[in-house]
């Protein structure tokens, strides 16, 4: 071996040693300062970053040895980014997630069960039992994979001021809803009574209106069969789809959340369905007195049927190297004052019993309505099978094209619902087979 080759070999060995040394040095000593990565995706980015930034500031003041780095993921790409992170192992320590998404993470063994920490937390007792039970359905093992500290409910939003100007009464029933949409539509002026969500994320709106009208009480029946194509649902959805292009803009075919909000904000759309998260945005634009958010009207059979009862909270990723410190932060986020602050600012339902009595909760009409409906024993709560890891894929991707075909009259409502029901029934059967249920 000549000197050139020896130098080359020495350089390689040195580089390898440095790499190994660098890797080893990333393991922190016990008393060393730790930096946690926290990924969030709820709310509009500006408000969410402001609110979460404030919470981090409070946490760091109490825990000077722990720093928290915040990363906001835009809602439309958050799932993809988290999925990629799990695949590559480049995960954060803490993830802001919820019942809708967490089953994907448990299926991939990406999140840590929180039960041991949770049982010793002084804030655990504040969380309503129903929210806790709901959170435990995320995985068949019944363990807790995120702290259910906030909730969302679907709402029909409408502009009270525009209805008043037009001399149209506020809707109190499903018939009213269709009548208001029709009366408020002035296509020559580009004003439409309703905004239908034809684009990305259409499923919650569809379920809210369809099950709300039909009164069908379950998504999957006892035999594991999806009720989506129940004749009452078919009839309800047919009526809803008739609005497209007549009482809605044809451009709603592509309408996603941002398009709906823009149309509603510009006064070109008078009513739309979305969750409580739109509250702060709507109030900022129109004032609390000019906008209303109401729960689904009673169905023909009598009871109110609500869907989209989602709960949100924080999870600790399995790949985290600082799980105990991460729990400190997750626990801190369960403090009633923190739950109150974030829920008030982002428009969530606080899932902490002491917060229910806060003044701001009682002052918010949409929130009061949502809580009253949930508390009413006659209310039927539709539990979407979020525990199916395929749920999001079917609801967001597979059914997107058929739904747009339905709106354009290229596919019948019946065929669409048959197809959707088949997909969920198959997924449920596979789930039951895997878990011996």
């Amino acid at each position, binding site marked *: 071996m000549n000197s050139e080759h020896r130098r080359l070999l020495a350089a390689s060995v040195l580089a390898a040693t440095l790499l190994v040394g660098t890797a080893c040095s990333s393991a922190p000593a016990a008393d060393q300062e730790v930096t946690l990565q926290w990924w969030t995706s709820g709310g509009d980015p500006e408000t969410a970053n402001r609110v979460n930034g404030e919470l981090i500031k409070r946490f760091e003041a109490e825990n000077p040895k722990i720093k928290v780095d915040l990363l906001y993921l835009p809602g439309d790409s958050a799932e993809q980014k988290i999925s990629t992170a799990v695949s590559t192992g480049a995960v954060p320590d803490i993830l802001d997630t919820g019942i809708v998404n967490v089953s994907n993470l448990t*299926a991939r063994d990406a999140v840590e069960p929180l039960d041991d920490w949770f049982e010793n937390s002084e804030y655990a007792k504040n969380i309503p039992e129903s929210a806790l039970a709901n959170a435990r359905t995320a995985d068949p093992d019944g363990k807790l994979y995120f702290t259910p500290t906030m909730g969302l409910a679907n709402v029909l939003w409408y502009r009270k001021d525009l209805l008043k100007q037009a001399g149209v009464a506020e809707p109190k029933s499903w018939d009213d809803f269709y009548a208001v949409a029709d009366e408020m539509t002035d296509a*020559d002026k*580009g004003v439409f009574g309703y905004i239908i969500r034809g*684009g990305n994320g259409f499923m919650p709106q569809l379920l809210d209106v369809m099950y709300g009208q039909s009164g069908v009480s379950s998504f999957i029946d006892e035999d594991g069969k999806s009720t989506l194509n129940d004749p009452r649902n078919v009839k309800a959805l047919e009526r809803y789809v008739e609005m497209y292009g007549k009482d809605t803009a044809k451009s*709603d075919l*592509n309408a996603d959340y941002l398009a709906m909000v823009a149309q509603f904000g510009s006064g*070109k759309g008078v009513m739309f369905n979305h969750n409580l998260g739109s509250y702060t945005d709507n109030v900022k634009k129109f004032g609390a007195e000019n906008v209303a958010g109401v729960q689904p009207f009673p169905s023909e059979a009598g009871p109110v049927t609500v869907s989209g009862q989602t709960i949100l909270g924080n999870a600790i990723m399995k790949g985290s190297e600082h799980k105990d410190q991460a729990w400190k932060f997750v626990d801190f986020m369960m403090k009633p004052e923190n739950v109150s602050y974030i829920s008030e600012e982002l428009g969530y339902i606080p899932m902490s019993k002491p917060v229910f009595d806060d003044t701001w909760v009682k002052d918010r009409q949409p929130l009061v309505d949502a809580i009253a409906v949930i508390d009413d024993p006659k209310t039927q709560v539709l539990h979407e099978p979020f525990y199916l890891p395929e749920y999001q*894929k079917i609801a*967001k*991707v597979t059914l997107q094209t058929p739904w747009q075909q339905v709106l354009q009259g290229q596919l019948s409502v019946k065929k669409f619902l048959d197809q959707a029901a088949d997909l969920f029934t198959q997924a449920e059967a596979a789930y039951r087979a895997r878990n011996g249920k």
Partner: protein
Amino acid sequence: MTAPTLTRPRRGARLAGTRAPRWHSRVSTPYLLIAPTLVLLIVLFVYPIINVVALSMQSYNLAQPWDDGFVGVDNFVRMAADTAFWQSIWVTFKWVFVEVGLQLVFGLILALIVNETFIGRGLARALIFSPWAVSGVLTTTIWLLLYNPGAGLVGVLADMGAVEHGVSPLAGTESAFWAAVVAELWRGVPFFAILILADLQSVPRDLHEAAEVDGANAWQRFWNITLPHLRNAIVLATLLRGVWEFNNVDLLYTLTGGGPAGATTTLPLLIANTAIRSSDFGYGSALTVVGFVILAVITVVYLRLTKFGKED
């Protein structure tokens, strides 16, 4: 006194203190020099291809990890029965032919115009070429605004009574395709114009003068002199653009997302939706392999048919 004897060093003899390079170092040095390039090629080119081919024969779905494993050609069998796949193939070819054809025609016309001498030619060239500098996502933003029924050009036309209110070219299965074609045309025409203009400037002027003397009109001069001279530039541009348009994801993904109702879902978009949105990397990889084979075959056939680089 003895005269000093001058002796000639033997061929190949070493000078004191030096060592002759050994045989193996003479052989290995060139390989060491090209090693970084080879490593990069293997890491960035060979490995991904092998990985995609391997994945195409597996079930690898992040949403259904319990099914993961080797499945042989199952993904390809599934593809044969998948209407979304065949629909995407049809949309892809329609997209490539329409885009490349229109970009060639408009690019050629614009190149011929700015090849002439006129006042403001520099400005005209700059304006024509400027869309090429705009990224796909930015192009999408511009055209999304134009097509927005509330705030864009479509909204203005609706206010003037020229079109219906609440209608967007992107919200119709037929119109969305053509709306996307126009947006991509805006960005793609400069590429053809630049390449063809560069080649036009090397067309011998004396040939045109001789033809003019012989009584050839402008069309005959274009058809018989200019166009044959541009052949290689046109073949290269159409081939490159054809491959790029086949693989177009940035503009279509951000402008239409493949919708509405799959009307603009090309094969790469189907791959993106399958692999990224549905997390089905096994089937997505099988689709990628098919796309790769289609492109490779088309490229070879096209280059043979056009006799690229060969003189007549």
